[in-house]
């Protein structure tokens, strides 16, 4: 019995807890991708860099606060930086929209043109970030490190294996829940939110109803940039902030949005967790788990890992391909691309 419990604790510690945090980060990112796709009708490749920009702003504010000896006690100081990061990222997104995307909307550019434009924007923001903060690795977490320490868990339960929950993981999941609830409340209950869904559903009829498209686009950017700033900061807090990782984050985020059904907010969230859980379950080494579960003479000698962690990123691509073959509209039928 304790063997089974120990095995479950290992799985919880190395798969469930990290996947919940990673999945939340992906879900927030995918939600931004899906919003831009359904309102502005293009795939925004600059979204990863927008997240990175938000995280960078948070770091700059955090440094300023730290040097002024302001902290949040057990919580990371970065939380105080998030509102500023949201504001700055929103300003950046709106500036880019006014100077770049608006022109392409006016000439009624094809979605693929906008996609390529967004790649240009991606390079622009990533250059800006390296110019401001440089390409190096930054750790900006402070405060208490763990919500639940492995040793405390062992003492509490008397099991061999420990379960640890990092403060950043707890914050990530809690923030994601709050934001998702807010976004859904906004989209389904407010007049402006409903007008955004109406615009996404039927542009011509929305115009006939007197819905102002530029206002819808503006609000979409505000929400997307806010989500990006928070998601980027949470990812940086949880791992560490390295500008280049946000480029490779683009693939799992897009996979999450498409797997869930692009244009469908619920799908984006579900997709985020599908990708996170698959990445971690497939690249996890099950040796210890199996040692607990199997009789002693059958205990494995190898790592019992299905795929090396180096292939983690490729995995989201595989899931994407599988979903597109068997259910092209995604798990929660979004729009066909």
């Amino acid at each position, binding site marked *: 019995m304790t063997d089974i419990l120990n095995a479950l604790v290992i799985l919880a510690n190395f798969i469930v807890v990290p996947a919940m945090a990673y999945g939340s980060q992906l879900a927030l990112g995918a939600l931004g991708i899906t919003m831009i796709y359904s309102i502005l009708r293009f795939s925004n490749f600059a979204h990863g860099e927008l997240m990175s920009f938000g995280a960078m702003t948070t770091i700059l504010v955090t440094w300023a606060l730290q040097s002024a000896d302001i902290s949040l006690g057990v919580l990371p100081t970065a939380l105080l930086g998030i509102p500023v990061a949201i504001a700055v990222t929103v300003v950046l997104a709106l500036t880019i929209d006014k100077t770049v995307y608006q022109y392409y909307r006016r000439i009624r550019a094809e979605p693929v043109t906008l996609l390529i434009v967004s790649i240009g924007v991606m390079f622009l923001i990533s250059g800006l970030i390296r110019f401001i903060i440089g390409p190096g690795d930054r750790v900006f977490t402070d405060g208490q490190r763990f919500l639940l320490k492995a040793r405390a868990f062992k003492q509490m339960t008397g099991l061999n294996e420990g379960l640890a929950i990092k403060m950043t993981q707890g914050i990530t999941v809690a923030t994601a829940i709050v934001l998702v609830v807010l976004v859904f409340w906004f989209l389904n209950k407010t007049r402006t939110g409903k*007008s955004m*869904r*109406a615009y996404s*559903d039927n542009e011509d009829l*929305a115009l*006939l109803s007197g819905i102002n498209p530029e206002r819808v686009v503006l609000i979409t950017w505000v929400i997307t940039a806010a989500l990006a700033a928070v998601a980027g900061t949470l990812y940086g807090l949880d791992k560490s902030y390295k500008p280049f990782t946000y480029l490779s984050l683009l693939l799992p985020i897009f996979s999450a949005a498409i797997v869930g059904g692009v244009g469908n907010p619920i799908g984006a969230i579900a997709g985020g967790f599908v990708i996170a859980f698959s990445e971690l379950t497939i690249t996890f080494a099950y040796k210890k788990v199996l040692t607990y579960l199997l009789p002693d003479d059958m205990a494995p000698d190898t790592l019992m890992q299905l795929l090396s962690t180096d292939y983690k990123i490729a995995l989201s691509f595989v899931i994407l391909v599988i979903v597109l073959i068997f259910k092209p509209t995604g798990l929660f039928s979004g729009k066909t691309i």
Partner: protein
Amino acid sequence: MSFLLGENMTGGYGSADILHDCTIGVEQGEIAVVVGPNGAGKSTAMKAIFGMLNLRQGRVTIDGEDITSLKPEERVLKGMGFVPQTANVFTSLSVEENLEMGAFIRRDDFSKTMEQVFDLFPILKEKRKQPAGELSGGQRQQVAVGRALMTEPKVLMLDEPTAGVSPIVMDELFDRIIEVARTGIAILMVEQNAKQALNIADKGYVLVQGENRFTDTGAALMANPEVRRAFLGG
């Protein structure tokens, strides 16, 4: 002069004109029907009146006010409602949300108007929480008409409201349209089902190749042997 009048309209999508000196008007509380063969420019005439098409000549007036240069959404504010032929509901929004979006430009309390729409189309009240995309063709048309009524328009323009619905549903829809007209709203509609439509019409326009061929009361057009032979199938 008619309450809503598109006068001597000439224009089209590209360089070629589809409408040639075409005049269509409707009075408050009346139903005007535009009929004609395929490609006669019926829908184009509707679009021209609603400002979705640039006119090279002619003008559009509502209650004597020239609105020729206004955009469609500005015409909504002047009291015009338009139900397009296709894609005329928000499929992913619930029936109730569709009606709310119809009232988007209104800043006052529109719950009374919504009650009136539900009284007119009781089935919509029953299905208010259901996405409009899940409804039958006839119910969808009711949502579409209801959405347009939410601004409390003075003129309601319908582009083939009975396209693709069964004859029974068509009769039912026409009954509702008569009810709407009785509340004092001017109704201008394009119809494929010419006979049935002219039966309920106070005024009928027969368009051929973008020109007015016959203009008379609905009953007179029905009685006109030439119109019967050429456009109503005998």
